[in-house]
């Protein structure tokens, strides 16, 4: 089955949300107007990311991150241009130039930077290939996507899209039952933490906004980020006074006894089966 479309219709934040929640493994290829992005995920975590129009080998990443000097960069390009990133990383660690942590940190920063730049892409054909292997020889990471998703939501400026995503501020929020998510690992802003502190099925989003002194746009943006990161879900607010119990019979079945209702639905089932 395909997982493809256009970022115009299904944003990079929504894609990351899907990949995160479905714990997907595979290569996401996005053909933008000026460049192509290749992003590899393992079990819903970011493992690799690169943009086609800029060098993304380890030497270039370390040079950009100022971990190696211009002369070291030139030397590596001259002597080890055919060495894979993994081999080069080992060489640098064994030679004592850099620690494993420094290399991994630089690679992670570079991959995250690619994703952050993708948030600005309004257009781009994307396709997710679950059969594609990880890029050979590259250093793979295991970066969780929740923080990136929240970062993407913070950059969302389109009022219309936010309103479509969260049309009703009279809904409430509750935390999802996801055992692998730890709120403490998230890089939330003070405003976002304030919203999180009010999350309760009894509080509507409107009430949270008032308590956190946020306008409609601000609260929608924060809630959108938390929703996309899979941390919360929208629920109908629990009322202080419970509503009257729902009618036991359906509107279209009103006035009938339960046996008559059963009989009617069973007749419909038999007829549909016989078509």
């Amino acid at each position, binding site marked *: *089955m*395909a*997982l*493809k*479309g*256009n970022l*115009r*219709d*299904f944003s990079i934040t*929504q894609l990351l*949300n*899907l990949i995160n*929640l*479905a714990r997907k493994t595979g290569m996401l290829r996005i053909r933008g107007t000026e460049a192509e992005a290749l992003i590899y995920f393992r079990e819903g975590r970011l493992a690799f990311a690169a943009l086609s129009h800029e060098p993304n080998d380890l030497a270039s990443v370390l040079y950009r991150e100022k971990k190696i000097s211009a002369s070291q960069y030139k030397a590596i390009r001259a002597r080890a241009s055919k060495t894979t990133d993994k081999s080069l990383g080992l060489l640098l660690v064994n030679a004592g130039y850099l620690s494993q942590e420094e290399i991994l940190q630089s690679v992670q920063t570079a991959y995250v930077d690619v994703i952050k730049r993708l948030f600005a892409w309004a257009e781009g054909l994307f396709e997710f290939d679950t059969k594609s292997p990880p890029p050979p020889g590259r250093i793979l990471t295991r970066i969780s996507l929740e923080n990136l998703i929240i970062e993407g939501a913070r950059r969302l400026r389109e009022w219309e899209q936010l309103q*479509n*995503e969260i*049309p*009703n501020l009279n809904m409430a929020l509750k935390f999802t039952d996801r055992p692998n998510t730890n709120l403490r690992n998230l890089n939330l802003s003070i405003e976002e933490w304030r919203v999180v502190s009010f999350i309760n099925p009894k509080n509507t989003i409107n009430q949270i906004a008032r308590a956190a002194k946020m306008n409609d746009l601000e609260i929608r943006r924060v809630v959108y980020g938390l*929703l996309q990161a899979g941390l919360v*879900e*929208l629920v109908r607010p629990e009322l202080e006074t419970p509503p009257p119990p*729902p*009618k*036991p*019979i*359906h*509107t*279209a*079945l009103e006035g009938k006894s*339960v046996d008559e*209702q*059963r009989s*009617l*639905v*069973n*007749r*419909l*089932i038999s*007829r*549909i*089966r016989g*078509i």
Partner: protein
Amino acid sequence: MQTVKIVVTGPFNAGKTAFIQTVSEIDVVATERKISSEAEKVKETTTVAMDFGRITVDEDLVLYLFGTPGQRRFDFMWEILSEGMLGFIVLVDSTRPETFREARGILETFHAYAPTPYVVAANKQDMEDAWDIDDMRIALRLPPEVKLLPCVATDKQSVKQVLLELLFSIMEEIEAGQK
């Protein structure tokens, strides 16, 4: 003679007319017009008021299938059509992720009109570009208890299965009301 109705709703070009046509014993009474908007020219005509199909159950009972217009500008028809429905089906085109958000909105709107049982049918699952059901569930933000069913609106068995699943949900609700 008693009549009951099921409403088939969903975004523009989701396949609602085809869905009803596949199981209706009469030619669907369609109120279609040529499409004037360039943006919506993915097909020649569209439903502007409603589609209307019929399945005679026995001499005392008839099931009507009502298809809603998919475009938002005809949403004044939705509430009228949902009046007294037994349940509803939200049809979503599995190949057009750009309509998923709208499908979610339609689902919420109909559920607000009448909290009746409903199922979501992922249409065009036979096409190469169709999204996987599990991916669609996440994109549509459907909780696990909501039935999301693969569907091909032109295939009788597939349409029957969607209708049956909705009827099973209605039966479950009747039984739950007893407890």
